[in-house]
C-alpha cells in the first residue's frame, strides 16, 4: 500500500507526464520529500524557500484541504488519496475581474487558463 498522488497538468513535467504517482510518508512533508527523490524538483514547486506550502497551491487529503489538517505536518496513512491543484478563484471571470484590477500583480496576458467556456 502507498499513498496515491494526483498531479495537475502543469506539474507533470516532473513526473514524466504521469497523472498519478505513488509515494510514502506518515506526514505530508515526508511524502513530499519522498516524491522529490523520485521526481526531482517537485518539492520546490509546492513549498516556498521558507518552508511553507506555496500560497497558490492547494493540497487535499481524501478531498480535505491540508491547511486545516496540520498543513505540512498533516498525518497520512497508507491508502490515502492526495490531490494537488493550483488555486483558482470561483468563476473564470471572477479571476478575470481580479486580474483586471490587480493587473500589474497578476499579469493576464500570459497563456494561463483554458477557460474557454465560463459559468463564472
Amino acid at each position: 500500500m502507498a499513498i496515491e498522488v494526483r498531479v495537475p497538468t502543469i506539474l507533470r513535467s516532473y513526473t514524466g507526464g504521469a497523472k498519478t504517482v505513488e509515494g510514502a510518508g506518515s506526514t505530508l512533508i515526508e511524502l513530499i520529500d519522498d516524491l522529490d527523490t523520485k521526481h526531482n524538483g517537485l518539492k520546490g514547486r509546492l513549498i516556498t524557500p521558507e518552508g511553507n506550502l506555496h500560497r497558490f497551491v492547494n493540497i487535499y487529503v481524501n478531498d480535505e484541504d491540508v491547511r486545516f489538517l496540520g498543513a505540512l505536518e498533516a498525518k497520512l496513512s497508507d491508502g490515502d488519496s492526495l490531490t494537488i491543484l493550483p488555486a483558482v478563484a470561483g468563476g473564470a471571470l471572477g479571476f478575470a475581474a481580479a486580474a483586471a484590477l490587480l493587473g500589474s500583480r497578476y499579469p493576464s496576458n500570459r497563456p494561463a487558463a483554458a477557460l474557454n467556456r465560463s459559468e463564472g
Partner: protein
Amino acid sequence: MARFESLLDALGGTPLVGLPRLSPAVPDGAPPVRLWAKLEDHNPTGSIKDRPAFFMVREAEESGHLRPGDTILEPTSGNTGISLAMVAKLRGYRLVCVMPENVSAERVQLLRMYGAEIIFSPAAGGSNQAVATAKQIATEHPDWKMLFQYGNPANARAHYETTGPELLHDLPTITHFVAGLGTTGTLMGTGRFLKEKVEGIQIVAAEPRYGELVYGLRNIDEGYVPELYDASVLDRRFSVGTRDAVLRTRQLVEVEGIFAGFSSGAILHAALAVAHEAVKAGKRADVAFVICDGGWKYLSTGAYGGTLNDAEDALEGQLWA
C-alpha cells in the same frame, strides 16, 4: 405571509427547510443529526448573489463611489451579473458586462432582459481576453465603476448582517454551517457572525473541483486567492469533484424535491460528510447549508439526465459553480 414595498425590500428572509430523507439515520437512542437547507433561490433574481449585489451597490452609494446615472462595469456572466443587473435597473444605473461570446444563451438573454449591456470578447481568447477587454474598456472610461466582489467588504458584510442572523434565528441549535467557496463572501460574513454567537460552531467550505481542462494550463505562480478570504474563519475545507456534485444535485431533487444548481450539490456533499462524522461520533448535529440557486440556468448542460459519466463529460471544461 409578508408584503414588501418593492422587489429589493424582499431580499433575504429565505426559508430554511429540513431534509428528513437525506439526513443520515442515527442508532436508537443516539442524538439526532439533521440537515437543513437555506433556499437562496427564493431571492429576487433567484440566487444568493442578490444579497452582496444589493449591499455593494448601497455601500458604494453611501460612500459616494456611485452617483445617480453612473455606469457599473462588471466582467461576469454569472449570478452576480444577473443580480447586479436587477439592482442597477431599480436604482438607476447602467450596467455593462464583459464576457466571452461563447457563454450560454440563457445568461445572455437573462442579462439583456434585466437591461444590462453586454460587450463580447472573442471566444478563442477565453477569460483572459475578457480581462484584456475589460481593462481596455476601463482605461477608455475612467468614470465607469467596478464593484469587485472578490475584494469588496460589502460582499461579506451582506452575509454578516443578513444570512448569519437569519440562520441563528431559525436554527438556534446550529452546529455546522456549510457553504460554497468562490468569492468567499458567504463563508466569511456568515461564518464570522455565527462564530461570535454560537460556541463551538464549525464553519465548513465546499470548494468546486472542476474538470482537468479548467486547471489544464493554470500556472501555480499566478493563482489567485480572493482578498476577502481569511482562513481563520473556516474549520474545514472540502474539495468536491464534478461527479459528486452532480450526484448530490440529483439527490436533492429526487429525494427532497429541491431543484438546485450544481454548486448546491457540491455543498450538500460536504454537509453530508460532516453529518456522517457526527453520527459516527454519536454527537448531535444541526447542519445548515446553502442552496445557492435553482437548476434552471444549467438545464442546457444536459447534466441532469443520463449517466454520471455523461454528466461529467458534459461539464468537463465548465466552471459549474
